């Protein structure tokens, strides 16, 4: 369905992890990332770049992402984003926020 919204989530709020929520929606144009991290000032840009890089590899151009970081390594961020995206892609519909 054209107007279907798909959501997915992966990760946790434990130390060294990141909780990633993603939403695909027909209304979403481009990539919108909301980041919450204790090290946002120092590493915010790097984390966002890592998320964008992962989305690029997955061929995703339109998505909303909320990432609650707890000091995750790049490879963890990338894994959680990929899992959340794949879960969303597999989900059938979803509730709008």
């Amino acid at each position: 369905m054209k107007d279907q919204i798909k959501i997915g989530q992966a990760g946790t709020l434990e130390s060294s992890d990141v909780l990633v929520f993603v939403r695909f929606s027909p209304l979403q144009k481009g990539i919108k990332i909301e980041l919450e991290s204790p090290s946002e000032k120092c590493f915010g840009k790097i984390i966002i770049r890592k998320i964008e890089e992962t989305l690029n590899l997955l061929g995703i151009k339109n998505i909303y992402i909320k990432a609650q970081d707890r000091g995750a390594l790049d490879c963890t961020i990338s894994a959680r984003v990929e899992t959340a995206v794949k879960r969303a892609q597999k989900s059938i519909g979803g509730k709008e926020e």
Partner: protein
Amino acid sequence: MKKRLRRTALYIPGNDPSMIQNAGIFGSDSIVLDLEDAVSVDEKDSARLLVRNALKNINYGDTEVIVRINSLFTPFGKEDLEVIGRVHPDGIRLPKAESAQDIQEVDSFLSRIENEEGFEENSIKIMPSIESAIGLFNVFEIVRASNRVAVINFGAEDYTSDIGAERTKEGKELFDIRTRILLAARVVGIEVQDSVFAHAHDIEGLIRETKFIKQLGFDGKSVIHPAQIEPVHQVFTPTQEEINRAKRIILAIEEAKKRKSGVISLDGRMIDAPVVAKAHRILKYAQAAGVL
């Protein structure tokens, strides 16, 4: 290739980023990133990608990196192999190995991946775990099924549950499986590792069990807590007396070789090839423990 020691294989839950990133610092000879029992069914997809990325990005130094995949009888096993094989772990620990066919299936899978990725042929090892009566019944075929099989171990909980035995701290119920997998391993010249000692805080019990399995001939043990590593390594560390004697044996046999003799006597005891082999083994363990 340098022969590595496998005194300890530390289990690390495959969906725990904190433990995964620190897994190499505890000093175990191997780490086993676990996608099986330590990960709930709902998180199998997440753990698989987390472990894949860890293998791609984290430098574990000299530590042997093993991934325990899910059994091929589950919906996750093949996908685990497909994803994890491509980042080249040192070994795949295959739980619930029951037949030669199980091993051959993993072998073909890995051969295809090695070929597609340009990895060295047979460089990813298979480490089957015997966890059932049928697995133990077929253990000789399992170890002979592929030359990738490098280590065999067993899962005490699943095995005792399958055969209807009680699982005790004393472990008498495991005597048969221990000796049979050991024998199978030695027939094909591979290594053999003991199951975990589940009581993480009972270090005395761990030491007792480790001494026993070392006496049987085991090469090492799986561990579930970093605190279990050092005591196991201690048990596998030869005493100064053993080291000195081993050195003297090797020296004596070298002298004998110069005289074209294969058998000599040292301190009134006959020294021949098996005694020399044991002496080399002692020095290997001493070297790994840094006491040589």
